[in-house]
């Protein structure tokens, strides 16, 4: 019954000269070409990259970071977490709180409190909002809260050897519980509507092209950094042990490794990455609400990784791009067929492409 994982050995070397060349090209496109074509080329020119595309690509890059994070735990350690959407949303809420405080008195009610609190007739900030007007604190929250949650949850789960599908189901239950919690007005995070209507970030107008482009470049930087860091992890001894845990956990234990530590470390790291991605996502799309935590979103992250190819890192980025690109296309062109397409992707990938797109390419 042991699930057979097909390892793409070529890719565990990550990467040949061609891989580095592709990565370099993408980096140049992200850091040089797109900024020039967005900011320097006038809007009338056919070469102009519009704000729509900048936001879309920026958004997909955030998703790609999440996919990379999931690939680290699923592709390399064999832990399918359905809670990554939660970690992502928590990061988003951390950043969202700071952005809400930045609105200041520019809200509809001209109050120091965010509009939804005025609406609920609250007089002071609840304790969760302490110090959230400080940028560094918001960043700390956005990374530490998902990390801490993953650490505590993972500690109990891995210690009692909850694994495989059981782990998937209880992480899904956790996400579901958190979503219900955030839907409540009393939780203090804006209930159904979440946070929106942001004005400034660090004093810069959040909708200006320059701010957008800076956020875009920061996201691209974090994506490349995550990829390189991930590559470093999976090619290190630590990564080899993770792969071994995925393929034969009892044997690794009999060799004297405490697998709990390894799994916990990678799970927590992965959650922190999701938090960062969430914090980058919110200022770019301008809204965060509890539906980001819906269990469906977390499962979708898994399919991004599966489409690209598990255990390849680059595949996760590719998958996030392909699926989200298709989503953007379908929801505009044939909105009613998107779920059919997504469902078909799920089925086709698991039945016919267990190694994803990269696996197909590698077989050639």
């Amino acid at each position, binding site marked *: *019954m*042991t*699930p057979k994982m097909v390892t793409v050995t070529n890719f565990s070397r990550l990467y040949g000269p061609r891989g580095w060349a592709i990565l370099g090209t993408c980096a140049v496109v992200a850091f040089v070409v797109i900024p020039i074509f967005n900011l320097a080329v006038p809007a009338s020119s056919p070469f102009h990259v519009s704000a729509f595309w900048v936001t879309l690509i920026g958004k997909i890059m955030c998703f790609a970071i999440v996919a990379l994070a999931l690939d680290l735990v699923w592709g390399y350690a064999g832990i*399918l977490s359905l809670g990554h959407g939660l970690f992502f949303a928590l990061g988003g809420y951390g950043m969202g709180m700071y952005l809400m405080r930045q609105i200041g008195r520019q809200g509809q009610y001209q109050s120091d409190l965010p509009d939804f609190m005025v609406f609920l007739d609250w007089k002071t900030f609840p304790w969760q909002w302490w110090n959230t007007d400080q940028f560094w604190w918001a960043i700390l929250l956005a990374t530490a809260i998902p990390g801490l949650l993953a650490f505590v949850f993972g500690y*109990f*789960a891995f*210690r*009692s*050897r*909850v694994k*495989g*599908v*059981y782990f*998937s*189901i*209880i992480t*899904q*239950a*956790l996400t*579901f*519980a958190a979503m*219900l*919690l955030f*839907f*409540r007005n009393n939780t203090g995070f804006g209930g159904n509507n979440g946070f929106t209507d942001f004005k400034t970030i660090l004093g810069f107008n959040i909708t200006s092209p320059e701010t957008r482009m800076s956020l875009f470049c920061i996201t691209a930087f974090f994506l490349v950094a995550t990829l390189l860091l991930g590559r470093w992890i999976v090619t290190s001894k630590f990564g080899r042990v993770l792969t071994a845990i995925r393929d034969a956990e009892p044997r690794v234990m009999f060799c004297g490794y405490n697998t709990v530590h390894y799994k916990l470390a990678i799970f927590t790291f992965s959650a922190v990455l999701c938090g960062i991605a969430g914090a980058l996502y919110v200022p770019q799309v301008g809204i965060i609400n509890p539906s980001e935590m819906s*269990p*469906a979103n977390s*499962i979708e992250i*898994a*399919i991004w990784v*599966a489409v690209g190819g598990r255990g390849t890192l680059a595949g996760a980025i590719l998958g996030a791009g392909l699926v989200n690109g298709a989503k953007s296309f379908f929801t505009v062109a044939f909105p*009613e*067929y998107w*779920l*059919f397409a*997504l*469902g*078909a*992707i*799920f*089925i086709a*990938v*698991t*039945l016919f492409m*267990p190694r994803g797109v990269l696996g197909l390419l590698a077989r050639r």
Partner: protein
Amino acid sequence: MAAFFLSFSAHALDRSAVEKLAFGDGDEKIEAIGALVAEGDPKAAELLKGFAEGELQTSGKQIFFVRGGKAVDVFSGKPVPLPAEREDVVANNRLRGAVASALGAFKLNSQDRNERLAAAQALSDAGAAMLPLIRKALEREADPEIRGLLDMTAAGMELKDGSKEARIAAIRKLAGSANPGTKTLLLEAASDPDEDIRREAQQSLRAVDGRLALGEWLGLAFAGVSLGSILLLAALGLAITYGLMGVINMAHGELIMIGAYATYVVQNLFRGSPVFDLYLVAAVPISFLAAALVGIALERSVIRWLYGRPLETLLATWGISLVLIQAVRTLFGAQNVQVENPAFMSGGIQVLSNVVLPWNRIVIIAFAVSILIATWMLLAKTRLGLYIRGVTQNRAMAECVGVPTSRVDTWAFGLGSGIAGLAGCALTQIGNVGPELGQGYIVDSFLVVVFGGVGQLAGTVYAALMLGFANKLLESWSGAVLAKIAVLVFIIFFIQRRPQGLFALRGRAVET
């Protein structure tokens, strides 16, 4: 002229009351309504109705209805010339409320016992103006249930304004009530300046509290069993597909949804027929078959290629669920569809004054129990059940002795899916039917199966009931959402302590 006709009419309206209604201020009007009601005259009912609908107008001393541009005298009922200068008799919301309860109160004179009972129930929160009417009705009323109700209502009204003796008598009477409304009345009286009244009120309050608490606990227990039966229905199919076969079927919720839509289709086929109420009976086998066929098709086309790869099964079946949701949206629209309760399932049994057990819940509990028994019989007593258990315990050995294992897989999956369809059929009677119906149950049903322990039905039953009770108990303390979160968190921790669930199968199977 009006006085002339008055002398000829057998039932005459009380002139002073009508004038008070037409010309008096707010309080006088209320008083007048009470007086008119107490007469029990059908003409008074007509007058009040006209008043509430704004037909009543005055000109000088004359009082008349204006209907379609013609004036009709109030007392005589004869047409009169429409005066040029007239004024409306204005009814504000308070007056309209008084009239509405007064009109209801007229039914106290009805011949039909049920109508009188309904009127007595409606009166229980009416204003003190109805007191004379109630006293009058009490003189005639023979039915003990209606008498009791009216007695309580009258006592409540006397408590509000009456002499000290009358109030104390009223308080003692109220002690026999189990109506949540009397509790507020008594609480008010318990802070009365008069010490005697305070003492009496506190005594009565204790009696009422005791009776109410019993009802609350009974209601809670019933709600727990009811939720448990729904969880059981939703999880029973999963106990077979996941518990016995080990297939993580994320499309289980959508199979429930298909059962619900099958019921909806059957309902539409029966619409307009004289035996409409029987549609539900016909829907039971059809929803089973519809979901079972979809399940068998899924097993044959997708799931069988993924046996032994649970994570891939999870993703593929999630994909299937998306396709099914969108397919239903395309076929039936994204909006919820309307499924009516048959007449025999509406209403309920009144056990205590504050506990009503709705019929639809009772029927669903019975339905869940019968499905449970049928499933258990099927697994324990039939050849198919034997095969399923054999394949679960040792697939290779079962195959060696000639069990067609792959066909058994298909049948077992079809059975689990069919039971999900039955759950859907039951859910149409208590909730909305829409494309997302199943999504709400998938997390719950997995938790029930995992909590109960994989591989057997008994665990699922206990788990469903325990979770149902826990949910309702917490709900009464902390509200629905927090209760749900608490239960989820509890299960998450529970699974970490006992990953095998409440009732683990003991065996030599090594975890793989």
